[in-house]
């Protein structure tokens, strides 16, 4: 199972085409030229985790959740290293996980009037979307608690100012 040749024949095309697609989307979303490489690395990391999870035999939900967790970790760390908004790194990293094909098959089944398949694919689309969302939420909530105390700061700042007014 750990044979590289086998893995390459199974996932090589997906990895390369996913990278090309991610690069295309980085350009599409106007990522700055010097940040393109980070976008591609992020896409590659989330793809590799995704393939790893498939090999481990996890279900759709966990495949996407773990990939999203690692991608968000990467984005938040890079944001602190390179000093740019974390969105710049997060968006390219999550793009290969977007359930575009599932949405299409849901729609196709609906057009053909196949209620059972529509339900099946619809549920799958929802599961994948939920998995990605949960993965992002988990990590960014932790980072938010750790370093981004903007809200607390804002409230504190406002209160101090208000106190100042009252005493005047």
């Amino acid at each position: 199972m750990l044979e590289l040749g086998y893995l390459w024949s199974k996932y090589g095309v997906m990895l390369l085409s996913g990278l090309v697609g991610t690069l295309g989307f980085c350009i599409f979303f106007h990522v700055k030229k010097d940040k393109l490489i980070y976008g591609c690395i992020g896409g590659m990391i989330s793809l590799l985790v995704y393939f790893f999870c498939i090999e481990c035999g996890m279900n759709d939900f966990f495949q996407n959740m773990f990939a999203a967790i690692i991608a968000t970790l990467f984005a938040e760390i890079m944001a602190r290293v390179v000093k740019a908004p974390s969105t710049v790194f997060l968006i390219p990293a999550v793009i290969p996980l977007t359930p575009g094909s599932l949405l299409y098959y849901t729609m196709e089944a609906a057009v053909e009037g196949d209620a059972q398949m529509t339900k099946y694919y619809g549920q799958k689309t929802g599961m994948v979307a939920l998995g990605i969302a949960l993965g992002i939420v988990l990590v960014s909530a932790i980072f938010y608690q750790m370093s981004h105390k903007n809200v607390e700061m804002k409230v504190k700042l406002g209160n101090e100012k208000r106190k100042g007014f009252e005493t005047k």
Partner: protein
Amino acid sequence: MSAKESNPISCFEAEKVMEKALDIGEAMLCSGAEILRVEDTIMRICLAYGDGIVDVFTILSLIILSWHTTDDKNYTQTRRIYSYSTNLKKLEELNALSRYICEEKPSCDFIEEQVERIMYEKDTKKTGSAVLLFGNVLGAAGFAVFFGGMLRDGIAAGIAAVFLYLWMNFYQKHSSNRVMFTLLTSFVAGFICILMVRLGIGVNQDKVMIGIIMLLIPGINMMNSLRDMICGDIITGMLKLAESLMVAVAIAGGFALAIILAGFLAIPFVG
């Protein structure tokens, strides 16, 4: 007016500073920033120029900024946001600019100049749109192959992406309604995809369509909406989530219409 008077500011007038802060906030919101970032930026810029109580309220389509200055005057300005997209380059530059403003407190003219430079630079140049087109083609082709298509499907998706890009450029000027825009665009895109397969360029119609769908799908919006909700901006998160769900339905509807219509028209196979 404040302790910061040592730094000579030619234009400390609350109204003027507020206008510039709103300009930056609007530009950030239009480039796809989180609400928290927008509110924080506006508040910091205002407080960098003078003291008082600054209150900012931002949702997807509106910014309200009110400033009670130390000489006991109230100023309020609002800004309506009509459309937004994702432009990470502008977002990054605006973020850097707002940091610079808070540290250096430049004149209002300088801020205006910089915002204008960031927002309108390269948008009109032809090289910029060529690069964008290239990105579109790469994205569509890459994901058509990624989801199990053959190389020919990738090429077909790439060609379809060129037409889609031309159509979007043409139609974007006439529409600001995102849902209707997506519905019509995906209808046209679905039709182009079917043509591509019928002409014998693509092999699997579903793979070509998936490649194109990836360009339209509001995955980024959905992700941003969830991040907004974690950060405490429930209203905007709900608005964005509802919108991205509507857009997803519109995509499905548009492609479905195209498939049904193509079935009626029975465009003959060439390949």
